[in-house]
């Protein structure tokens, strides 16, 4: 296990069972931990828990909604550059590094980079399209603690999100990884076309050997930052029904892990049966851009998250990110939102997805698609 002091106590990262545990100061003392400077009256800033590293911007899939606008001739930084970024992430005190891209399996050194991350004390995980996997690429993926395969559903559902049908290939990747004993999950992008078919997609993924599904809100970044976003995003009705949908899926798929991404948290505000305290107790994260999360672009620049525009600060200066104005602007909860002020989920949600807010309103929040924000604005317009 690895532990990191925080002003309120400490985070402890456990490998078996895999979990991140937050203990208060007395709990940390019971574990023999001393908070040092973090428990002083003026603690240093807390570094990210998790870093998302684009190890390439090269990808031949050509997904219509690619948030990075990855291309077949995209930038592929040399191994030494990636290693230097991993060192900076480890020195900052992060626990987990998630490799992405572009398509990470285009790199011949992918497995070695996973090993390097682990040697630095980081937990390496990776997301892949699963397309074009060879035995050698499977070997490289098997060196990660978990692999997530992008999979939005069978046939037409997959094509509705990505613009082409490669569902069978993604399914083969899930099965091949599971057969090798690699912990595998699927990333499922929610659009208004796929939302109604979510149960089928998850059941199929589970049958193929996936342990969990990560549900992702469709976001207006990269090639998705266009007017088509407005046609593909969830409808208001779908957004408001996320809580009941998750409840039903949890009942239908016992033992199968259900995850939501930070951008979906505001939609839970429409479900009064969800206890806000439970979100905090179970470590559900809303917008943690530039806070618990930081992203490293393929060119080495730091970004608040993978969807947000980058700073000019390079990853090697990660320990100076607190002072960067661009990163700081994305760090705080969305301000000036009357709907957020008394929202019971506010402390966790932190104002919703700033990427969506920036695209649709030009400001960093509040999230204009949050059911509470929609209702508040309707009241204001009617007043």
């Amino acid at each position, binding site marked *: *296990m*690895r*532990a990191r*002091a925080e002003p309120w*106590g400490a985070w402890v990262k*456990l490998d*078996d069972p*895999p*979990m*991140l*545990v*937050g*203990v*208060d100061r007395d*709990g940390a003392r*019971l*574990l023999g*931990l001393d908070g040092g*400077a973090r428990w002083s009256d003026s603690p*240093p800033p807390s*570094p990210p828990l998790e870093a998302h590293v684009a190890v390439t911007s090269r990808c031949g899939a050509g997904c219509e909604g690619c948030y990075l606008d990855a291309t077949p001739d995209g930038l592929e930084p040399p191994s030494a550059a990636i290693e230097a970024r991993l*060192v900076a992430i480890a*020195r900052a*005190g992060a*626990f987990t590094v*998630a490799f*992405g*891209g572009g398509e990470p399996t285009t790199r011949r050194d992918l497995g070695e980079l996973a090993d*390097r991350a682990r*040697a*630095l*004390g980081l*937990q390496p*995980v990776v997301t892949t399209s699963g397309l074009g996997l060879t035995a050698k690429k499977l070997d490289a993926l098997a060196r990660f*603690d*978990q692999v*997530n395969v992008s999979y939005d559903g069978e046939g037409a559902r997959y094509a509705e999100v990505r613009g082409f049908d490669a569902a069978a290939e993604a399914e083969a990747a899930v099965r091949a990884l599971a057969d090798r004993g690699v912990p595998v*999950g699927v*990333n499922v992008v929610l659009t208004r076309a796929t939302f109604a078919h979510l149960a089928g997609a998850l059941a199929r993924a589970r049958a193929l050997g996936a342990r969990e599904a*990560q549900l*992702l809100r469709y976001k207006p970044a990269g090639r998705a930052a266009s007017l088509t976003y407005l046609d593909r995003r969830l409808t208001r009705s779908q957004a408001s029904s996320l809580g009941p949908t*998750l*409840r039903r899926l*949890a009942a239908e798929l016992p033992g*199968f*892990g259900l*995850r*939501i*991404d*930070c*951008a979906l948290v505001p939609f839970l505000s429409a479900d009064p049966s969800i206890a806000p305290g*439970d979100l905090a*107790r*179970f*470590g559900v*994260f809303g917008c943690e851009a530039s806070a618990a*999360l930081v992203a490293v672009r393929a060119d080495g620049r730091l970004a608040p*998250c*993978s*969807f947000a525009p980058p700073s000019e600060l390079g990853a090697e200066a990660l320990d100076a990110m607190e002072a960067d104005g661009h990163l700081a602007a994305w760090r705080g909860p969305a301000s000036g939102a009357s709907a957020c002020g008394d929202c019971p989920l506010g402390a966790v949600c932190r104002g919703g997805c700033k990427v969506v807010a920036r695209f649709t309103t030009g400001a960093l929040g509040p999230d204009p698609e949050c059911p509470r924000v929609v209702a508040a604005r309707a009241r204001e317009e009617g007043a």
Partner: protein
Amino acid sequence: MSDLPAPDERARLAAALAAHVRVVRPGTSANCSSIGSVVDMLFAGGVVGGALFAAACAALTADPAERREAPDRDDEAPGEREDDR
């Protein structure tokens, strides 16, 4: 925590920790684009949630903790030294 406690001591420590565990964030997120959180626990009821916290307390006593320090420009990350490579 420098040494692994004996089983009885582990049980006592786990019981003592129960009042001090504030957050249990289960699982391993492998998504590279946005931060993910397990939510099926939200619908599983108090018994399952309690079991998760109990498992966390037990696991916290199972291994010595390797402390990750606050960023210090003079510190080296594990494996950063030449002889770790």
